């Protein structure tokens, strides 16, 4: 039998068992803001009121898209055999003033950036798999793929999850993702972004990618069309700013987009 140490179980270990492998939150039982209620006999035992601190809120407005990425969704049957690949990624700006004062080389910064995006892609992929599984929808590969049929994006699996500070970004982020064909698209947003707007923007971007990269016809290849993705993003998500676009604004931008792409 495994050696049991009851006393050790009282630590903060639980957080490590969380589904995402996030690091445990340390909690300070002396948190002054604790509110004690309930029977007075327990009042002295402070830690029962969880010492959950809200994310360390930044002094600054945290509403912006930090990154956009397109990644692969492997078919559910393939298991670990297929790797999750980031096919395209764009980081808007860079991470805000690093807390780590040690100087690090540009290579490390770049490596970190790439690893962060891959971590997001992996998590989005597994979120998508779990959602598909739970809702009993056919896996992606079985969806109709004839090039005439439009893909019902409003029906596509989508979701949202939070990334805790430090894992993998310095600050907390919220990821909105959407899956179609065997691709996933994700917006890495700052924590207080308008999620309704982020969702509809992601849907819009996905539609534009489908239209302008001709993803349905197998000849074209997303890897070699970065210019098109860039131009779409520059129009519809400039510098990572989500836009409140009504249908006419979208049409106006689409006209500009077509002009840019055919020039």
């Amino acid at each position, binding site marked *: *039998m495994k*050696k*049991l*140490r*009851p006393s050790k*179980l*009282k*630590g903060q*270990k*639980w957080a490590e*068992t*969380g*589904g995402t492998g996030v690091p445990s*939150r340390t909690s300070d039982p002396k948190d002054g803001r604790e509110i004690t209620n309930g029977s007075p006999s*327990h009042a002295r035992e402070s*830690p*029962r009121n*969880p010492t*959950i601190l809200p*994310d360390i809120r930044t002094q*600054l*407005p945290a*509403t912006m898209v930090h990154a956009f990425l397109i990644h*692969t969704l492997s078919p559910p049957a393939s298991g670990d055999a297929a790797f999750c*690949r980031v*096919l395209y990624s764009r*980081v808007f*700006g*860079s991470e*805000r003033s690093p807390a780590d004062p040690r100087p690090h080389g*540009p*290579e490390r*910064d*770049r*490596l970190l950036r790439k690893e962060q995006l891959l971590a997001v892609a992996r998590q989005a992929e597994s*979120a998508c798999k779990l*959602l598909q599984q*739970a*809702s*009993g929808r056919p896996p992606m590969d079985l969806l109709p793929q004839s090039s005439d049929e439009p893909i019902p994006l409003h029906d596509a699996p989508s979701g*949202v999850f939070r990334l805790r500070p430090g894992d993998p970004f310095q600050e907390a982020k919220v990821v909105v993702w959407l899956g179609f*064909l065997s691709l996933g698209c994700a917006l890495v947003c700052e924590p207080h972004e308008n*999620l*309704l707007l982020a969702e*509809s923007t992601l849907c819009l971007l996905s539609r534009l990618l489908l239209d302008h990269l001709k993803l349905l016809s197998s000849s074209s290849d*997303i*890897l*070699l069309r970065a*210019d098109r993705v860039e*131009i779409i993003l520059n129009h519809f998500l*400039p*510098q*990572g*700013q989500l*836009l*409140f*676009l*009504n249908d*006419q604004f979208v049409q106006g931008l689409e006209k500009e987009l077509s002009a*840019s792409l055919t020039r």
Partner: protein
Amino acid sequence: MFSAGTERLLLQAREIQDEELKKFCLHITGLLQKEDLGNETINCLQRLFLIVSATKYSRKLEKEFVELLLSALYFPKSPEQVQVLCAAIVREISPSDNLTLFYDHIQNTKLLSLVSSVLLAQGNKKDEVRDVGLHVTKIFESRQPEGQSLRYLLPVLSKVITLSPKVLKEDQINLLNKRLIDWLRYASIQQGVAQTSGGFFSNPWARQPAPITEVDGAVATDFFTVLSVGQHYTEDQWLNMKAFSMLRKWLLYSGNDGTDSPDSDDKSELEGSIMSMVSATSTSSRLLPPKERLRENAFEYCQRLIEQSTRRALKKSDFELQKACLSEAVIILDLLCRQDSSFIYRTLTCLKILHGRLCGDLAYVRALLPVAQFFLNHSEAAAVNSEAVYQHLFTNIPSELFYNSVLAFEFIQFCRENIHFLNGNVTIFKSSFPNLIKFLAWNSASLISEFLDILPVFIDASTAIEMLHVLLDMPCLTAALDLYLRSSCPTAEKPLWDPTLKPTSCLDGFRDPHYQALFQHLLRTKARGIIKGLTPLHQLLKPMASCPRVVQCAETVPILIQLFFTVVTEFADGTLINQLVVLLLERSDLLFDVPQFKAAVHRVMSSQLLVLCKLHPSLVVELSKELLEFTGTISNIHSKESLFTNVVWAVGEYLSVLYDRRCTVELINRFFEALEALLFEITQFRPSATLPKCCPRVITVLMTTLTKLVSRSQDLIPRVFLFLSKVRSFAENPTMTSVYSEEDTETILTRATELMNLLKMPSVAQFVLTPSVEVSNPRYHLDTNTSLPLALRMVSQVVEKEAGFLPGQDTNRYRCTLGDLES
């Protein structure tokens, strides 16, 4: 489409060697120097982008080459594709040292935006963000060049203030405040004109500007907003849209002064700012300084958006935008009230009406959370009672919309961010945990990590028992929620449930009055105690037990109950611990039959049982009836071996006067007899189909526990001595050796021999098996190898060799290796 071809291309790009890359760059250099900006160049740049982006390791590009890319980016004749590719390549290799970009001469705002994106990606090592910020602001200050639109620069400004808080000076902020006011409030309400060439036959009336309309097609009643519709938009209307898109961020930025933390829930800070703001309040907004005027205009803009969101949009995408705008408007109003308390009263009426409207209209449900946040932040200052808001939020929303995963996420975020306030001030919050758990039961995979953050707040002495039941019943709840959806909206266009599953019998049961009370209990919205006997539901819902959603939910339960015990053991007293142990013993049987669910829950239960026993050893005496009953049930050995073993171990460890003075010899004897009978039953009968093979661990734990008990009631020593020798012969019996492996037999034999040796010296036995607290605390030595078997072996060896010569004080050194649990 991601195919094998794509994968191959990706790997090829990664495997390109530096030499090859150098050659390729030389080729591109040739093309660019010839000013060949045609398809081949574009094609090459696309490939180069792939090569630098496909790997996470840096690709070395020569400095001269990067400069060439940059000059192609500036080059006025470059097609947009070349420009974006050059920018993307340089961004992709960023941060790069020695990158020099000159943009002072750039007149083209679109290009400036592109260049800024490259600069902002450099990690702000050389204060690039500040440079970009100041440059862009300068353009806003000056007259914009002919044909250039500022609308490309607003997002740059937005990004700059996100990346660096202290870039702009007061007068620059004021200037931008003024411009934002113009764009937000005074954009044209006539439609723009299409930029057609006109020509000879163009219709002169077509150029007549038409009025802007609302989303429902009616002519606009008031100023232009993002919800105003026109065939074509004028420049200031585009700016209006971009300005509103960054408005919340700008208000926070410009209203911040670097001292106020707007999102903090620290009220004292807020009150401080209220006092200073009150005097500045004035309704004649024209006289106000730009910052206050912008707030005034933002307020009007948001009011107008709320009004516009009542209109019936002609287009579906506009309806979606209405929802997003409504949420944004409420968030901005909340922010304005935080920055300037004079807005509270003006906002309050409007939001009260809005709340009433939202309660009746689920389409706009997502705006409910910002509304609740507003009331949470300001109801105290406004002296209004917002009970009704919370009542509706915590009662209706989870039970009706648990399946909306993004709403569920936002809801849990809302709880998490306001947890201290809600816990302290909102009575309904704490009692609504059975309702909130519905979000988790349905969206368990995506919500579990969020939920772990808020779960502890719901656990206290009054809720612990019900909470544990709720957690254990979660998979069953998932199945019930599925049935609830199927029966309440059977004609839904897009089924919210798994369409491949056809739980007809379950659905019939869901509607059957016979089960009504049980389902109502399971689907309750508030904590109201427990009811016994969900077993009929487990039977009824069995066909759904292996459906993926239920299984996913079941997988989260062990994590949750582990957390539950971590929290509860921090405060539980003896009474509560006793209740919890009884609950564990009872519920170990009554679990929904999800594959692997029972085993996983038993694992947590058995480890937590030991924690509880250690905290409150008297429970062995206080719950002797329940424990006797549990250990007396032979089927428990097989159905929950780990829990059974730990209960037996706990009896042996804690049933002693050392832990509880009420522990009598009679009680010890009662346990002894029950366990003896049990061990007899499993060892003396031949293994058969009805009584499957028993794990040797159970046998050794039972033997050890019996020995421990007799060491405290020494009259029984001869009896257990005889019994152990029987077990020894049993283990050597050929019919048994055919069932147990050699190793297992050896284990049983050795343990029996060791225990018998120990019992030859009753005083030593007592000392080893029932150490007094002074001896066992502090334990000088504790590691993974510390265990009773080790101690037993040593004592056994000593006894065998030096029987009769062992001085009492020397046993101390055996004591210190005595661990908690035998292997």
